[in-house]
C-alpha cells in the first residue's frame, strides 16, 4: 500500500494504483482523454501530466505511472499548468472549431477541458488537417476530423465488446480511426463507443442533430429490453424521450448498455396505441373508454371465473400485481407470463434464477454455457464472461455454435451431454474453485432437470476466506420474467394450461409473442402500448403506457428488485396500466382495493415482501428434483437480436440495424 503526497495531501492507495488514481483519492481532478477506468491504459493523449518527485525533471503522464511510496506529486505547479496548456494547444491544432454544429457540444470533454485547462486562444495559423468521413454502420455517426485519437473506441472494441472492427490505420499526421474497410461496427454494444468518445468524432447517428444535452430532463429508469435490468437514464424533452444513457451500477451493467437499450426510444412515439379500440364486425374501430369498458363488462358478466391474464415481456411488477388481483377477484388463477410456451418448473425460484449474480460471474474460473446465445440473450452478462476469461476462466458450451466474441470449447448440440459430462469438462469443473453453469432459455425445456441434477458440482461450501459459491444460473430474456414468477404468473404446464382452460375472457398485458390462434374462443382484451401482434388479434384494445411512461418495479434475472421512474406521460388517451385495471375493475363490479400507486405498491409488498424492497431478493437454494434425463438439440429463442419485442419492432433504428447488421442489406451512404 504505497503512501504518497499529492499537493501536500497524504494519501494511501492500493498496490498497483496509478498516480492518477492517487490524485483522485486526494480529491484532485486530473484532466484526461485517453484514460478510462474500464479500459486498458494507453497513455497517448498526454493530458494527465503531473509533476512527480522523485523522477526526471519533466511532467509525467499520471495515468501510466504506478504510484509508489514517498512520491511527491504536484498537480498545481506552474510546470503542470504549462504542460496542460501545451497539450491542449496541440490537441486543438487539428480540431475543427465546429462546436456550434457538433452533437457533442455541451457534454464534450474537449470543450470542458479546454475551458478549464487551455490557454484561451490559439497561436496556430497554418491549415488544419481534415480526415475523410468513415462509415461505421447504422448506430455510429462519424466526423473524423474531430478525432483526437485517444483510441478509447479501439480499446473498447477489443476489450469489452470483443468485436475487433475498429482500428487506427496509417500513422503520424495521417493516422485515422476507422472500421475495417469502413464497414459497419458489428457489435451489439456499439453505441457505447459514442459515449466513450471524449469529442464529437463518434456520436449517436439515430439522434443526430435532434437535441442539445442541456434541453433534456433526466429521469432514472430500468431497461426492459432484456432481463439484465440495465440501469438507465431517460433523457426527455417535452413529451418525448430523446435518448437512453446507461447509469453506473457495478452490480448490473457497470456503465454499458447495449444498442437495443439505447436506440429503441424512437419507437416510443411510433405505432402507439393512443385510444381504445373495440372490434365491431371483425374490424377494430376507435372507441371511447366507456364503450371499451362496456364491451368487456358484457363478456365478463357471463364469464364467471373463466378469466385469464397473460403478461408480456416488458411489464412492471405493479401492472402484473393489479392484473393478478383482478383475475383473482373473478375467482380464477389463470396467470401466465411465459408467452412462447415454456413450462419449466417454478416451484423453487432459485432453480430459475441467476444465483451467482452478474458481478460475481467475473470470478468464475470454469463456465459451462448450456443452450444460451448469451451475446443476444444478455449481452451485458456476456461481457462479464469475457472478463472472467481475461482472469483465466475456461468456457465450455452445449448448443449450436455461435460467435460469442470469445473462445469457447463447443461440446456439441445435444443436451444429452448433460447426462454424463465429457471427461475434460467434468475435470475442469472438479478442479475449479468457482465453476458456473449458465442455463439459457433454449435449454430450459429439455435440460432443466438434467442441469439441476449436476448443479451440486457447481456449488462450493464457504471457507474461511471465501463465501459460499452457487454456480447455478438461469438466463431469462424477458424483463418481466422474474417479477412474474414471484407473483405467480406461471402455470404448471405453461401457457398450454391456459389454452386448455379456454378462458372466456383473457387479458393480454402487452403480450405480443403469444400464439393467438389458440385463443380463438376467448374474448381478448389487449392492454398495451404498441400496435403489434397482440393488438391485431384483440377484441378490445386498452391503450397503456410503456415502461418510460409509468413508475414501476422490475426484477432482473438475478432477482434484483429495482425501481424505475416515469419520464414522460403516455400519448393521447393512453393511461398507466394499473389505472386502467383499477377503473375497469370498478366497471366490472369487482373494485380493486387500491386507489393510488402507493397503495398498490404497499398491497403488492404485503403479498410478496421481496418486491417491496429494492436490492437482491434472497431465493433459498432448494432445487426441485425433476426428470434428470436430457436429450435433443437446442434452439435459441432469440432469432433476431434487434427485433425481440413490440417496442423495438416499431423502431426504425432497430429495423435498420436488423436489416443491415444481421441480414446484410447495404445501407452504406454513397460518397459525397
Amino acid at each position: 500500500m504505497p503512501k504518497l503526497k499529492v499537493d501536500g495531501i497524504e494519501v494511501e492507495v492500493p498496490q498497483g494504483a496509478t498516480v492518477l488514481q492517487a490524485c483522485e483519492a486526494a480529491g484532485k481532478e486530473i484532466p484526461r482523454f485517453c484514460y478510462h477506468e474500464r479500459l486498458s491504459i494507453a497513455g497517448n493523449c498526454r493530458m494527465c501530466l503531473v509533476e512527480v518527485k522523485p523522477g526526471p525533471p519533466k511532467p509525467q503522464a499520471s495515468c501510466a505511472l504506478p504510484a509508489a511510496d514517498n512520491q511527491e506529486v504536484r498537480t498545481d505547479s506552474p510546470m503542470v499548468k504549462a504542460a496542460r496548456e501545451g497539450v491542449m494547444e496541440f490537441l486543438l491544432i487539428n480540431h475543427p472549431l465546429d462546436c456550434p454544429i457538433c452533437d457533442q457540444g455541451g457534454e464534450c470533454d474537449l470543450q470542458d477541458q479546454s475551458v478549464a485547462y487551455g490557454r484561451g486562444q490559439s497561436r496556430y495559423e497554418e491549415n488544419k488537417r481534415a480526415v475523410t468521413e468513415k462509415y461505421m454502420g447504422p448506430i455510429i455517426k462519424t466526423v473524423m476530423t474531430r478525432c483526437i485519437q485517444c483510441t478509447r473506441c479501439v480499446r473498447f472494441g477489443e476489450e469489452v465488446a470483443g468485436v475487433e472492427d475498429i482500428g487506427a490505420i496509417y500513422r503520424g499526421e495521417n493516422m485515422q480511426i476507422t472500421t475495417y474497410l469502413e464497414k459497419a461496427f458489428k457489435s451489439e454494444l456499439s453505441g457505447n463507443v459514442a459515449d466513450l468518445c471524449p469529442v464529437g468524432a463518434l456520436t449517436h447517428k439515430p439522434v443526430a442533430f435532434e437535441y442539445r444535452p442541456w434541453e433534456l430532463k433526466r429521469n432514472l429508469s430500468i431497461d426492459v429490453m432484456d432481463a439484465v435490468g440495465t440501469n438507465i437514464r431517460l433523457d426527455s424533452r417535452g413529451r418525448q424521450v430523446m435518448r437512453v444513457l446507461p447509469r453506473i451500477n457495478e452490480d448490473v451493467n457497470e456503465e454499458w448498455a447495449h444498442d437495443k437499450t439505447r436506440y429503441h426510444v424512437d419507437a416510443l412515439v411510433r405505432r402507439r396505441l393512443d385510444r381504445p379500440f373495440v372490434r365491431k364486425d371483425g374490424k377494430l374501430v376507435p372507441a371511447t373508454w366507456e364503450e371499451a369498458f362496456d364491451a368487456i363488462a358484457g363478456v365478463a358478466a357471463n364469464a364467471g371465473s373463466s378469466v385469464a391474464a397473460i403478461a408480456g415481456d416488458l411489464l412492471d411488477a405493479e401492472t402484473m400485481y393489479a392484473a393478478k388481483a383482478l383475475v383473482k377477484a373473478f375467482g380464477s388463477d389463470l396467470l401466465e407470463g411465459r408467452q412462447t410456451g415454456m413450462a419449466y418448473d417454478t416451484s423453487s425460484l432459485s432453480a430459475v434464477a441467476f444465483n451467482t449474480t452478474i458481478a460475481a460471474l467475473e470470478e468464475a474460473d470454469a463456465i459451462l454455457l448450456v443452450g444460451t446465445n448469451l451475446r443476444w440473450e444478455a449481452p451485458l452478462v456476456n461481457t462479464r464472461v469475457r472478463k472472467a476469461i481475461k482472469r483465466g476462466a475456461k468456457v465450455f458450451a452445449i448448443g449450436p455454435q455461435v460467435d460469442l466474441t470469445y473462445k469457447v470449447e463447443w461440446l456439441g448440440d445435444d443436451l444429452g451431454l448433460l447426462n454424463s459430462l465429457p471427461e475434460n469438462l467434468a475435470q475442469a469443473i472438479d478442479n475449479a474453485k468457482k465453476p458456473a453453469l449458465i442455463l439459457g432459455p433454449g435449454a430450459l425445456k429439455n435440460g432443466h432437470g438434467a442441469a439441476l441434477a449436476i448443479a451440486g458440482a457447481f456449488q462450493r461450501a464457504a471457507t474461511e476466506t471465501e463465501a459460499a459459491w452457487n454456480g447455478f444460473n438461469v438466463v431469462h430474456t424477458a424483463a418481466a420474467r422474474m417479477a412474474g414468477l414471484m407473483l405467480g404468473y406461471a402455470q404448471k404446464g405453461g401457457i398450454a394450461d391456459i389454452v386448455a382452460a379456454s378462458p372466456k375472457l383473457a387479458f393480454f398485458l402487452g403480450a405480443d409473442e403469444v400464439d393467438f390462434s389458440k385463443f380463438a374462443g376467448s374474448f381478448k382484451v389487449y392492454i398495451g402500448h404498441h400496435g403489434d401482434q397482440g393488438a391485431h388479434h384483440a377484441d378490445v384494445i386498452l391503450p397503456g403506457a410503456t415502461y418510460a411512461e409509468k413508475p414501476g418495479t422490475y426484477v432482473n434475472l438475478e432477482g434484483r428488485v429495482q425501481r424505475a421512474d416515469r419520464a414522460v406521460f403516455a400519448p393521447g388517451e393512453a393511461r398507466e396500466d394499473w389505472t386502467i385495471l383499477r377503473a375497469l375493475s370498478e366497471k366490472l363490479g369487482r373494485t380493486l382495493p387500491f386507489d393510488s400507486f402507493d397503495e398498490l405498491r404497499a398491497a403488492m409488498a404485503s403479498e410478496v415482501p421481496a418486491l417491496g424492497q429494492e436490492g437482491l431478493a434472497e431465493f433459498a437454494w432448494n432445487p426441485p428434483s425433476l426428470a434428470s434425463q436430457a436429450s435433443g438439440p437446442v434452439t435459441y429463442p432469440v432469432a433476431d437480436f434487434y427485433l425481440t419485442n413490440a417496442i423495438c419492432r416499431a423502431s426504425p433504428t432497430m429495423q435498420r440495424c436488423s436489416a443491415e447488421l444481421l441480414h446484410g442489406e447495404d445501407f452504406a451512404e454513397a460518397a459525397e
Partner: protein
Amino acid sequence: MADAPQLPDEAEVRARWGAFAWTPANAEKAREIMARYPAGRQMSCTIPFLDLAQRQVGAETNTQGWLPVPVIEFVARELDMPYIRVFEVATFYTMFNLVPVGRYHVQVCGTTPCMLRGSDDVMAACKSRGLKKGHTTADGLFTLTEVECMGNCSSAPMVQINDDNFEDLDYDRTLAILDALAKGESPKTGTQEPGRHTVEPLGGPTTLTAMVSENHDYRGEW
C-alpha cells in the same frame, strides 16, 4: 489526407487476389518464421508474414510487390488475428505497399543530411528519366517515393532501390544506375564513390590515425 494512399477498387482486387495462398516454398518459410515464436504468440509473425506475402505478390507480378486487401486478410487468417489488426500494421509501415509498384521501387531519401548533400539532384535525375513522385512509370519499371532518413547519412545522398542501397550519389551517378536497371543489369550497390568501400572517411581517417595499421593503446595519452 492527401498523402494517404487510395486503396485500389476492392471488387477488382478481390477477383484477382481472392485465392492468394503461399507457394510451397513460401509455405515452408512461413512455417520456419512461425517456429521462431512460442505457441500462442503467433501475432509476432505479422510483419515477417506481410513481408513474405508482399514478396510473393512481387514474384507473381514481376514487380516489387504490394499488399492487396485479400492478401492482408490471408495473413490475418494464417495468424488467427482480426483483419483490422493486420491492416493496422500494413498501413503503419511505409515498407508495405498498399498500391501496386513497379519492378524497381526507387526510394529517395530527402531528409536533411541527404538534402544538404544534394538529394535534390538525385530527385532531378529521377525526374529526367520520367519518374514522378508517388507514381509508376508507364513501362511499369520504376516507382518513385520520397522517404525519410534511411540511416546512410555519412554517405549521403542515397536511394534505396528494392533491397539495395546506392550511396554517394549525384545527378550523373543516379542516371547511370537508373539506366543500368532499365537495361536489366545489376549495378554495383553501396557507395558509388570510386575508392570508397563503405562509409569510411574520404581521404583517410582524421581521428584514431594510429589505429590504421595496427592496434594502438591510446589510454596512456588521455
